[in-house]
């Protein structure tokens, strides 16, 4: 009979000849693209090859002032006076336009941020348009969302988003704010401004009244100007706990409302009665998906001791079949690390893990020469006291511990200042309801992980944040209930 063959996948590049990208993007204020007052620009690069893609205008204090006053004027004169159902129709338009140009957005998202095209095509962009579609429908239905209360808009929102899901985070911010009748100024992350700029073009195509949405780019300084601006009614922030705390201090005493979606160090718990192969896949989805750049990543694994050997052995084999490489190759599972800074941070933690005595296993996949890359990594022989078990790494690095009883693992899962998410794997229904009741986190996945839907609320306990996004709960951060 025939000898077995080796069979490797040929390159399967996503075509990029249909996308339209400018060399330079200005600030999107009052419905138009305008240069910054001080005329400064910064580059945005492709982290998979370190090449510059475009340059983007940097917003200084004067630009923030312009953007906020444009949002305020649009709120006073146009948006707050419009019938809610007509506001909804604009948001529906944005959703549909995103669906039409979905592939272009996916390619640009992968180029700018490093995530695999398969993820941006199949997850990020569809979820983004779904988010707009879901919230569009709430615009004229708010009287049903809050029993016994009338929901009034707050006014002007300042919104700051991170680089791990650039377009999706923009959708999570814009959609509920607009649906509830607010106007806004959005500041994308400085390493991933491009899909927000394309979104600004979609907003122009949708004919949204000028000033309702303003998008300004910049780094920490720009963010501070926005947070501290006197005419903002509300700050919405997704990012690190450290910056979240800064924001809380900055707005103290000002009367500004805020919602914060911060860091996490989620516990992913595998019981011995779990469906094992699906649980192993769940571990991979929890920590290696999106290069581990996920605030709700399952970065602490707890495996019941009796199945630990089987799980870890299967996990190691599964890691070997993960393809790390060119984000624009359709077969890539794990893309580039978003920036040099983030790569250095991950390397620092991994070295720390080894120094602390953990046993490291990394997949043997070859990594490209240029660009920022990190192989999927797990640590065993670590415990609650290890810093790599306590601190958020934000990379494809998993810390693994064993446990013996359900009481023990609940205590350990909760033993953290974070409380964003968690996961558990078991075939027993009553255990699911008990454990989900006892874990102190805002989103708990049973027999799955990292699932998102516009209808499903997402938000953290403790230092993982305040407030929720998604579902009816996602509306409450943008309204005054009277």
């Amino acid at each position, binding site marked *: *009979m*025939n*000898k*077995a*063959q*080796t*069979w*490797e*996948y*040929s*390159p*399967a590049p996503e075509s990029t000849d249909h996308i339209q990208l400018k060399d330079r993007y200005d600030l999107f204020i009052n419905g138009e693209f305008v240069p910054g007052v001080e005329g400064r620009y910064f580059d945005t690069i492709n982290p998979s090859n370190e090449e510059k893609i475009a340059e983007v205008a940097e917003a200084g204090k004067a630009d923030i002032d312009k953007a906020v006053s444009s949002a305020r004027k649009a709120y006073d004169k146009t948006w707050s006076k419009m019938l809610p159902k007509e506001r909804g129709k604009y948001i529906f338009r944005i959703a549909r336009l995103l669906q039409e140009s979905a592939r272009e957005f996916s390619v640009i998202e992968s180029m700018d941020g490093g995530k695999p095209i*398969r993820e941006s095509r*199949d997850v990020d962009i569809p979820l983004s348009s779904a988010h707009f579609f879901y919230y569009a429908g709430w615009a004229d239905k708010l009287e049903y969302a809050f029993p016994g209360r009338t929901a009034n808009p707050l006014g002007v929102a300042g919104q700051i988003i991170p680089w791990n899901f650039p377009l999706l985070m923009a959708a999570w911010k814009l959609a509920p704010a607009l649906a509830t009748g607010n106007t806004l100024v959005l500041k994308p992350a400085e390493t991933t401004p491009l899909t927000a700029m394309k979104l600004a073009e979609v907003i122009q195509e949708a004919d949204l009244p000028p000033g309702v949405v303003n998008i300004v780019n910049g780094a920490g300084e720009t963010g501070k100007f926005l947070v501290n601006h006197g005419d903002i009614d509300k700050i919405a922030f997704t990012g690190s706990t450290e910056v979240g705390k800064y924001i809380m201090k900055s707005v103290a005493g000002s009367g500004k409302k805020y919602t914060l979606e911060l860091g996490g160090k989620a516990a992913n718990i595998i019981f011995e*009665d*779990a*469906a*094992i*192969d*699906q*649980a192993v*896949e*769940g571990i991979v989805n929890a920590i290696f998906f999106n290069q581990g750049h996920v605030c709700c990543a399952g970065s602490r694994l707890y495996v019941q001791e009796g199945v630990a050997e089987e799980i870890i*052995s299967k996990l190691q084999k599964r890691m070997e*079949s993960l393809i790390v490489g060119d984000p624009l190759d*359709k*077969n890539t599972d794990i893309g580039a690390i978003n920036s040099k800074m983030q790569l250095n941070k991950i390397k620092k933690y991994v070295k720390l893990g080894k120094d602390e005595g953990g046993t490291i296993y990394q997949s043997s996949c070859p990594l490209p020469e240029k660009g920022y890359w990190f192989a999927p990594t797990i640590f065993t022989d670590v415990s609650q006291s290890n810093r790599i078990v306590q601190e958020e790494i934000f990379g494809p690095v998993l810390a693994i511990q064993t446990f013996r009883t359900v009481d023990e693992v609940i205590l350990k899962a909760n033993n953290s200042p974070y409380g964003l998410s968690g996961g558990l794997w078991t*075939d027993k229904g009553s255990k699911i309801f008990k454990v989900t009741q006892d874990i102190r986190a805002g989103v708990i996945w049973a*027999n*799955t992980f990292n699932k998102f839907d516009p209808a499903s609320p997402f938000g953290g306990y403790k230092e993982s944040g305040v407030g929720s996004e998604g579902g009816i709960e996602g509306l409450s951060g943008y309204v005054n209930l009277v």
Partner: protein
Amino acid sequence: MFLDKLLYAKPIDQIGAQERVTRLFSRSIKKDSKVQALHLALSMIDLTTLEGKDSPGKVKQLCYKASHLHDSFPGLPNVAAICVYPTMVAIAKKALAGTGIKVASVATAFPSGMADMHAKLDEVKSVIDAGADEVDMVISRGKFLRGDYQYVSDEIAQVKDACGETHLKVILETGELVTLDNVRLASDIAMESGADFIKTSTGKVSPAATPPVVLTMLEAIRDFQTKTGKKIGMKPAGGIGQAKQAIQYLVMIKETLGHDWLSPDLFRFGASSLANDVLMQIVKQTTGQYQSKDYFSID
């Protein structure tokens, strides 16, 4: 051997399994890897005719096609085997002499399995006497579904005994087992009891082979190898008519079991119309033009 379900039963999460399938099927197989996959798929086909109206004429024509898939295109492999009813084995054997293509026969009151053990074993013996290289048996699904796993284990062991060196495939008829939990349990029982190959379906019941079922069976095979060191083969049958599906299953094998299983020794497709679709794809890859069925023989 006393078979206690508790010792063996492993829960399979249907949604999780389906998601793994979706992820595997998102692989994009192009260019050289596609051509290699198409050739490999061809070599793994068990060309099948299992109809009440089969006759010597039909079987002889099918056997000719098996070794002359598309003579105008050089470098094509033959299919792995022909699969027929017991009364056609001798005819197929004669028609395939010298080609290296195996003759597989169904047995044990295929497709229902509803006959007593003696009759089924007699049928197995007659098929082997007629020269079959491989035997495809069916399990007793009614016994399985009422929890009589010992019976199922025993019947497989007895058939394997009757097969001797002849290679045995055990058909689970996964469409009747319905849940992935059942598919996993049946797979484990079959392998423990002597199967050389585990096979999804008779092709007479819908649904036949579905991706989550195939994944579950491949994972069972993987665990069995970890436990015993033995490599058991796998055959999905029924409902696989397109080259694209075949390539997707090759991806599934590669990423679940590894390269050792990318061989007709350990993997077969039970199909009738698949071969021509694969051939059309091979020609398209070479010429760049989409093909028409008119140019590929139907036997």
